């Protein structure tokens, strides 16, 4: 199938899915406004993490530990918010810890020539244990931690419903990343180092610095996304706060072929699936008809189906995941 026909087929499929979706919504009696709100909220952490990882993978580094960063920054964010009595500070705290973790992962990938996928997985496993540990150590309650509502990041009120400023920020980040990658000298070098680090090295540039930069930046963005989960969306901190969203963000990156704007689109798509699931789960009259568990599967099944349909047409930089060694 030629690329043009394939694109047409994909758009048709997407259009059909959206139409079915809208019909289902109407039948279920779900309001479009609340759905839009839920979808945008769900999109935010995905978009932030995915855009960061796009840059990272363009530079040839893979971070599958975004799930772990989400979890760690969620807890750190809440703790920082409580310490400074401000939700925004909480987001910054999440960014800081995310950047630190991103830098550490980047360092062991670049200098330690680590197997990046295993290291990322190690981070996720670490977080799986560390988060309950933190919850007990910090707040002495293993399952859930509630914090005062004033600490939430305040929302903006628009005619289209409530929207979080972080969501607007996520969109801005995606646009900025696009310009960075395609219009600036730095973006040019990032693309080069992902395709052929040897070329960058012999050109006299620092391969390690470029990769550390994208690693740290990606980590920071994922950190904001992670802190957003309790502080901007759920309003509470539970140990399964991330619930695989870090991997859905990874799916966004794959779907987008490492293009930040497409990653934003993918995050929107998967965000809607997520938002739809939450909306169905709480809407009276609906939640009795469809079992909660099947509704919960929707985001994951959607991701799987979309990735299965779309993959195979994307081009990745040659050296993604492979450490660069000069000798």
């Amino acid at each position: 199938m030629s690329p043009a026909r394939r694109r047409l087929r994909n758009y048709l499929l997407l259009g059909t899915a959206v139409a079915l979706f809208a019909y289902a919504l109407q039948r279920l009696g779900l309001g479009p406004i609340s759905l839009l709100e839920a979808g945008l909220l769900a999109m935010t952490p995905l978009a932030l993490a995915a855009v960061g990882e796009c840059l990272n993978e363009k530079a040839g580094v893979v971070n599958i530990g975004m799930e772990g960063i989400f979890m760690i920054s969620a807890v750190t964010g809440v703790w920082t918010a409580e310490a400074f009595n401000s939700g925004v500070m909480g987001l910054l705290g999440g960014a800081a810890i995310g950047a630190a973790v991103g830098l550490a992962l980047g360092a062991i990938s670049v200098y330690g020539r680590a197997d990046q996928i295993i290291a990322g997985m190690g981070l996720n496993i670490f977080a799986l244990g560390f988060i309950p540990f933190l919850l007990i150590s910090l707040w002495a309650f293993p399952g859930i931690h509630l914090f005062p509502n004033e600490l939430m990041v305040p929302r903006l009120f628009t005619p289209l419903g409530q929207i979080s400023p972080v969501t607007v920020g996520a969109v801005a980040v995606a646009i900025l990343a696009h310009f960075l990658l395609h219009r600036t000298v730095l973006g040019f070098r990032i693309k080069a180092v992902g395709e052929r680090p040897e070329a960058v090295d012999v050109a006299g540039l620092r391969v390690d610095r470029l990769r550390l930069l994208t690693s740290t930046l990606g980590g920071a963005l994922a950190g904001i996304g992670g802190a957003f989960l309790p502080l901007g969306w759920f309003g509470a901190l539970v140990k399964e706060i991330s619930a695989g969203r870090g991997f859905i963000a990874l799916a966004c990156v794959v779907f987008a072929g490492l293009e930040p704007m497409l990653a934003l689109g993918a995050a929107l798509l998967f965000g809607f699936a997520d938002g739809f699931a939450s909306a169905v789960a709480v809407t009276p009259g609906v939640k009795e008809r469809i079992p909660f568990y099947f509704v919960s599967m929707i985001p994951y099944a959607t991701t799987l189906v979309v990735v299965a349909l779309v993959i195979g047409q994307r081009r990745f930089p040659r050296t993604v995941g492979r450490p660069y060694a000069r000798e």
Partner: protein
Amino acid sequence: MSGAPRIDMRAIHKIYPDGTVALRGVDFRLQPGEIVALLGENGAGKTTLMKILSGLLRPTRGEILVDDRPVQFRNPADALRAGIGMVHQAFTLVPPFTALQNVVLGQEDGHPLGPMRAEAARRRVTALLAETGLSVPLDLSTESLPIGVQQRVEILKTLYRGTSVLILDEPTSALTLTEVHDLFRFLRGLAARGRAIVFISHKLKEVLEISDRVVVLRGGQLTGAVPTAQATPELLAELMVGRKVVPQVSRSAKPAGQPVLVVRHLRVTNDQGTAVVKDLSLQVREGEIVGIAGVEGNGQSELVQALTGLRPAQDGETVLSGAVVRHLHPLEFYRRGVGHIPEDKARFGLALNFDLTENAILSRQRERAFVTRWGRFDWGAIAAYARQLVERFKVVALGLRAPVRSLSGGNQQRLLVGRELSKQPVLIVAVHPTRGLDIASTVYIRELLVRMRDEGKGVLLVSADLDEILELSDRIAVMYEGAFIGAGRADEFTREEIGLMMGGIIPKGRDASTLALPPAAD
């Protein structure tokens, strides 16, 4: 157009962390305006020495002086600042970038966070092209350019940074004869304008043609440095390998027998769907070596893949020992008596982390002799067979259980060739069989191929090394852009004619009608 500095490398040692000694106390000097050839066989240390000079590696001991000042290069950027740049054997181009983008990388105008602007750079590059006489298309993606042009982009990259000392590592390995002449003319022009050039090669003839002085390395040590005017092939060969003449393989003239391989009107496409083998017919008979000469990238890889079951042919017919082959599976070809020595042993023919025994059965793992009824391996039989291989083909290894990675390149190839020959093939397809090997292994492998020929087997040899083709083949075909541009008995052609054909030029006085294509048995 700055004059080059004087380079003085003294007592350079390079020892790798795992203990390998690559260089042992080597001295090297370079004056502006001269072209120095750095000669040695594969593994002698020439590339290592120049990587040190260009800042990619650091010497374990020794010093480098530039214009009598000691310098320490921590990375290629330092060396570039001193005016020293290297064009590597494996190009360091970013494939999807254009030539202009590749040249500009690292030297972009403006702040990193600022916009990419290339107009000023374009003007500078165009001026440089005019000054040096180089011709390079600036706005095509480099991966779409032919190898000869890619090399020019690499040279342009180095010159753009103001290098006055240009190091070229085996620059002619992928070039046609015409391109080689163009390159040499260009290099002489550069030298005349005051730059210094280091020409790394293992080819005696080229070294004698282009250089002013020859420096010879062997086993990481300096064995001699002579002005080219005083050098003879015998002298250089002795310095390079310790013997007066590079050994040639002897051949007896014997008539060929029945055809073992007949190919008619073969058409093969590559992964992108382009036809890279177009209407190709050929024949290999018992007791003959057919050599396919040609620069890499003219369809040889795909042709070999089609003849060994790794790629389907879109059109045409393949006949092995009289039977038409329709299946597309490597094991099917092996079963019918085809032995395949692949173009890159480490990539296609061996599993480097597996031991000798497991590599000995690679591609033979389904044979009755080694597998019992339920799919279980008979390790006793396999080990005995592996031991035989090692003895018969003199593979030097620490033991049968040693990982093949620990073997030298020559021994790895011996194991591979031995394995293929032990399949009792009727046809042996050998692709670049001695590339990168030391001289002893090279001679051994070539002798093996000739011996196979004398025993009545058919050999299809694909090589970009013209000397190898000339030395071994009974009949030669030159492949260019997917078809044979010329073919005939080996003694029908001169070396120059074959070189021209490799570049796509049909030699004067030989139009297509006078070129005898291998007889296709109808």
